[in-house]
């Protein structure tokens, strides 16, 4: 999480004569740790990552097993009750978390990589390459994602997570590419890029050694956004019954609870955990994203406590 602290400090801080040693990891993370939004976002994210990673240790029950009494409310044996088909909801939730996060992270990273490649290439090379890539980006940006994903998911011949990941990546990269491109365009004009050219750096080195390190926070924000998009889209597709219905994940849990009428029979323990998890994971990602915004744009930072007290004093 020290990524955000790597950004250049605002210019007014660059007073002369101060001799600071190179900052340690802890001091670099300090602004991040002081930001409440960042901390709560990170906590939520870590919570779900923990469940996903330690799934085998958290439950010994096979999520597919239909060996239990159907529609049992939460109890000691079944912390989240059972489904109408007699499956343990807690073990479905735990394994579903793993599966949903897997799709979210893989598709999110995929979309991020594609947007970095297209955005940087388009911005740095310029010329005809840029015009063509920009046209493609804008088209992908404007074509509504989910309907396309729905149709593709229905048409593509192979099952499992792969087609879903592919379509999410294909429909999710364009926004990031656009943002990164415009950032590269402004950075390409910076004197230190021209200085690096004068210093004999190759185009490759300029992109990866000079530009990329200054874009980490933007890329990170882009990654968060892509994961959020991927998790929501995947869950939406699975909820519509367009994913692999035999798989256990948040989306299919909601699909089955909906088609089996859990809502109408009042089996809240069945449809609340997956839905709430999506909402909480989404909230965690949004909060982190929001925090990255605040940390990189000093104008957006909320007022320090002392200043708020001062303003109250002035007002009274």
């Amino acid at each position, binding site marked *: 999480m020290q990524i955000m602290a790597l950004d250049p400090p605002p210019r007014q801080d660059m007073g002369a004569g101060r001799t600071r040693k190179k900052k340690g990891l802890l001091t670099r993370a300090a602004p991040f740790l002081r930001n409440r*939004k960042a901390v709560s976002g990170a906590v939520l994210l870590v919570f779900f990552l923990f469940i996903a990673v330690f799934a085998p240790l958290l439950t010994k029950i096979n999520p597919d097993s239909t060996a239990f009494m159907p529609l049992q409310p939460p109890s000691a044996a079944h912390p989240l009750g059972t489904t109408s088909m007699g499956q343990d909801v807690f073990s479905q939730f735990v394994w579903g978390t793993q599966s949903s996060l897997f799709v979210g992270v893989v598709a999110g990273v995929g979309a991020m990589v594609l947007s970095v490649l297209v955005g940087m290439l388009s911005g740095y090379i310029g010329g005809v390459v840029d015009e063509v890539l920009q*046209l493609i980006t*804008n*088209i992908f*940006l*404007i*074509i*509504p*994602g*989910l*309907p*396309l994903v*729905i*149709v*593709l998911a*229905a*048409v*593509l*011949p192979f099952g499992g997570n792969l087609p879903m990941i592919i379509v999410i990546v294909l429909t999710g990269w364009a*926004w990031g590419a656009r943002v990164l491109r415009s950032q590269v365009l402004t950075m390409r004009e910076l004197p230190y890029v021209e200085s690096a050219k004068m210093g004999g750096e190759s185009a490759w080195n300029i992109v990866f050694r000079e530009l990329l390190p200054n874009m980490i926070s933007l890329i990170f924000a882009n990654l968060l956004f892509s994961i*959020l998009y991927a998790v*929501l*889209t995947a*869950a*939406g597709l699975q*909820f*519509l*019954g*367009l994913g692999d219905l035999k798989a256990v994940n948040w989306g299919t849990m*909601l699909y089955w609870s*909906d088609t089996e009428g859990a*809502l*109408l029979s009042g089996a809240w323990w069945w*449809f609340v955990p997956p*839905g709430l998890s*999506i*909402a909480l*994971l*989404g*909230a965690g*990602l*949004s*909060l982190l994203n*929001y925090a990255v*915004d605040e940390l990189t*744009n000093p*104008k*957006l930072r*909320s*007022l320090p406590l002392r200043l*708020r007290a001062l*303003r109250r004093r002035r007002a009274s």
Partner: protein
Amino acid sequence: MRYLLRRAAFYAVALWAAVTLNFALPRMMPGNPMQVLVAKFRGRINPDALYAYAKLFGLDRHVSLWAQYWQYIGQLLHGNLGVSLGLYPETVSAALMQALPWTLFLLGLSTLISFILGTLLGMVSAWRRGSFLDAVAPTVFTLTGSFPYFWLALLLLYFFAFQLPWFPLGHAYGSSTSGWSFANLPDILYHAVLPALTIVVTSIGGWLLSMRNNMINTLSEEYVKVAKAKGLSDRRIMMTYAARNAILPNVTSFALSLGFILSGAILTEVVFSYPGLGYTLFQAVGNMDYPMMQGALLLIALAVLVANFIADLVYVKLDPRARQG
């Protein structure tokens, strides 16, 4: 004007891309699409319908792909989107034209409410930095913005239609009324409350946050400072100096995020069985009604393009710099 021409050229290319993608879709199925279809439906479907589909996309003829492509575009220009496989003998265009007004109504209404409300809230919370509103609104609506549409729709349905039967469980109008008429408007609005609420709650955060950020940036602009030095009223500074400039990027992103909201609207329509394009698309998927799916996809793409063009017109109206191109 030049700016608009350039945008129009871009939309033409985008439309062409959407049409071409649509043409390519059935060809993504492995093997001979015609045989696949016949095997898939095995007697469940009227052969005439299947034939009409094959004809539209040129899947039945042994002519070059190029000729098939032109044939397809020619059909589209005549408004021919084929015949529905699921609702045979109804044509796709007829079915879609029935669904389109509902989506336009629901989505238009909720997006407008969400855009106006979000922009206003963002404006005021930036103007009153550090106030209670500014402390609460952005965070709360960021959180609701990350809610999955369909889950929120389910919850609303459960609480406000099932537990507390205040609102109907679904559909766009009651059984006593049918379709569009002025007399039906109260009933239609009554049915639209929950689905619209779902869309508003989940999409308002985006507008709020971006307006707030833009507004904070414009508030530190020199011209706002000069406006204050001129002794203008707070109201005029906020509206004509800060908000007027801060809203410009929001208008641009309005168009871009429309696709995203539309996706959410599809899920909402499905949960509420709202007879719009999304619900039609969903049903078409269930029926493996390929011509309907593709027709819906094309229409949605077209709608987004038109909405974008309208946003461009608004932008040109708002920003004198864009008028020169």
